[in-house]
């Protein structure tokens, strides 16, 4: 074999260089074309046999310069672009952006808009988690959950399609409220979905939760302690699985989350299995939020008076929401013109991915894909 040799992989890679076999290490390149790196992530793994002794993530293959585009579009023009970052949770991205600009404009969306936003965002969270579950299970070798998850996700996408005409990159919201009035049967559709969904989650759990192989593959894999998680800025389900009970929907309520009752699931050990359980429970909680929200959608306008040309007063604002993957923050600086002076997006996937090296050290190649799956990254958001 032609052994590719690299002396320094990353700053920390050289700390544990003891090989068990006494042979040369193997450098293996996972990606950017690889079935389970979820897009164009490239991971350089340094292996001793099958054991990972160092890793380096190489990203940027999908870099489109979203932040630069933002500086050259008006506030409204930029809104559809954010849908293309985390394209499996476009609604959440849109919500974060619209609310950030509303904060910058010092306006508030009307109550009706906020409730509908909440419903759609929670549906989006379920859809995103479903996609995660399907692909994660597929990475670990369970073929079937993927299709069940897709079936449920399809129902959600149909609701989106009925609402705004688009399924994936929805651009569902508008700065100041909503683009469209809710269609007539929205409540009924959401209710039907929520009714079915309960038994469907139970179905996935019968396939996986108690499965010995699944437990063997996920328990104790990719442990991230709470201290590490905070130090690495990890947020979202990954942080909660490490035992930190922190959710922006509770910590800094936005949209209409302060009106609803829901639990924040937390894990204990912070391993892949805990992250799995946390996300499963989050889907159930999202379902409960949806059910509460459709019970009472206030009447009234759906759009605050913001005007056609948005010229926020100079200044800056940071607004973060709990996207399915973690804290999605927008830091927007205005100079008083129609275009943002600077849009900074704090992408949860990008920052969560940084903890990958910490989680993967000492595990086997098979665990690498499990860990990539469990962080739940979307490369569109990592690279922006």
């Amino acid at each position, binding site marked *: 074999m032609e052994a590719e040799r690299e002396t320094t992989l990353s700053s920390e890679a050289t700390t544990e260089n003891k090989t*068990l076999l006494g042979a040369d290490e193997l450098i293996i390149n996972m990606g950017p074309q690889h079935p389970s790196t979820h897009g164009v992530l490239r991971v350089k793994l340094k292996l001793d046999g099958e054991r990972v002794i160092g890793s380096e993530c190489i990203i940027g293959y999908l870099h489109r310069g979203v932040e630069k585009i933002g500086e050259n579009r008006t506030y409204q023009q930029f809104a559809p672009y954010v849908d293309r970052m985390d394209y499996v949770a476009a609604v959440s991205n849109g919500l974060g952006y619209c609310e950030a600009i509303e904060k910058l404009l010092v306006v508030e969306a009307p109550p009706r808009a906020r409730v509908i936003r909440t419903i759609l965002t929670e549906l989006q969270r379920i859809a995103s988690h479903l996609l995660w579950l399907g692909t994660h299970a597929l990475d670990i*070798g*369970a*073929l*079937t959950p993927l299709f069940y998850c897709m079936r449920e996700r399809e129902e959600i996408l149909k609701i989106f399609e009925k609402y705004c005409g688009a399924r994936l990159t929805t651009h569902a919201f508008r700065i100041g409220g909503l683009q469209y009035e809710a269609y007539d049967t929205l409540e009924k559709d959401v209710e039907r979905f929520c009714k079915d969904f309960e038994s469907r989650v139970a179905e996935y759990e019968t*396939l996986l939760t108690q*499965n010995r192989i699944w437990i063997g593959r996920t328990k104790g894999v990719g442990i991230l302690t709470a201290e590490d998680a905070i130090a690495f800025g990890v947020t979202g389900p990954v942080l909660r699985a490490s035992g930190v009970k922190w959710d922006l929907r509770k910590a800094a309520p936005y949209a209409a989350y302060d009106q609803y009752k829901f639990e924040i699931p937390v894990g204990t050990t912070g391993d892949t299995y805990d992250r799995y359980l946390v996300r499963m429970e989050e889907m159930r909680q999202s379902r409960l939020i949806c059910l509460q929200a459709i019970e009472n959608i206030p009447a009234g306008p759906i759009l605050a008076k913001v005007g056609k040309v948005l010229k926020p007063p100079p200044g800056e604002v940071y607004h973060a929401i709990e996207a399915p993957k973690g804290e999605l923050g927008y830091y927007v600086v205005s100079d008083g013109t129609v275009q943002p002076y600077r849009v900074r997006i704090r992408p949860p996937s990008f920052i969560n991915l940084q903890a990958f090296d910490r989680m993967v050290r000492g595990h*086997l*190649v098979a665990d690498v894909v499990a860990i990539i799956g469990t962080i739940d990254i979307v490369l569109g958001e990592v690279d922006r």
Partner: protein
Amino acid sequence: MMQAVIQATMDFLKLYWAPLLCGLVIVAVLPLIVGYIVLVERKLMADMQARLGPMRVGPHGLLQPIADAVKLLIKEDIIPDNADKLVFWLAPVLSVGAALLSIAGLAIGPAFQIAKDINIGILFVVGVSAMGIFGIVLGGWASNSHYSLMGSLRSSAQLVSYETAAGMALVSGLLLTGTLNIKAIVEAQYNEGIWFVMLAPVAFFIYLVASIAETNRAPFDLPEAESELVAGYMTEFSGFRWSLYFLAEYTNMIVVSSVATTLFLGGWLRPFARVHFFNFLDYVPPLLMIGVAGYCLLRTPKQPSRVQQLFMLAVAGLCLALALVLLAPVALPIAKPLYAGIHGGFWFIFKVSAYIYFFMWLRFTIPRYRFDQLMRLGWQFLIPLSIVNVLVVGVALIVGSYFNLHGWSMLLVTTPAAIIALVVALMILAAGQQSSAGKENAPASDFYAG
């Protein structure tokens, strides 16, 4: 001189025309069968996953395997620059050659067996099919790619580990017959009036697990684990070379299920073959075929195009013809001599299909093992269990022969033996859990060494 050569050839042909013809038929037909097994697998998978599967080529995708074969044949044949060309060429051929050769030893019904009555039947089949691993190892090595190398290393380690367990399980079964001859094994089950799966259930279970691992099927499909190693040892292969590996894999599936059927599931025997009361079971095969034909006829008007309707009718007709063929030996006294051949073949294929169905079902249901877990399962559980099982089955047989037990009464001694083996299995599991809890963070064992 020339005459002598021709004469010798003619003599050879006269003597061996039947096996040669059968061999040709196998080489020609097996790829088609494998193609349809793949189609069935995809259809089953689709059914379990709430979707339809291939539907485009032919009615219900029935022509899909042919389309796939054509696609694979006309694909560009790529050999990587840094590959060892000769070995790269040789590896898939070795793999598929071993798999096809091992078919020769199998008896599909009392009438159809190419290598008739070899004394070491089962040993021949198992031994030759295990040769296929060379194809995998060489292919992975010759590709000169890290993924391929890791895939082939995993594969060889896995085969070595599980071949031991499978062999031990076979030994437990063979103790009951005392012969390696395939025909004699089945006849022994006929004479005893009981399938050996009842007498040696633990051995059957071990063989079941080990055979899945040997054929690199899920949940033990680590050598080609798509999500980790892209395609393992097959990563660099494309087009026809790749399909040869595929052919070898599915042929091996047929081989291991045939071995299991022969040794444990009564080979070509009908259930309760010696009990006249159950003779009505002879009508099951034709009725089954009539059922399939009826379903096809029912679906015919719903086919979208004329061609598809005709095709559906053709399938129905084929099934009816098969039903007639199956019915003839039961109903017509003249055709009675053909009974053993035709019905034997049906039951054998039926059992093999059921076994393969189980393989597929597992694949769709459960996730994949990790490599260390796989090795632990093999070395720390299956191998000790299989050794213990050989011992207890042997003791049970001695006790049985002391009391002169036969047939179903053998259960009196073999059931306790199976229970003992199960208790041992649970003890091994408990011990394994304790030890793994004790050294959670211990360094990995050296998998590839074993």
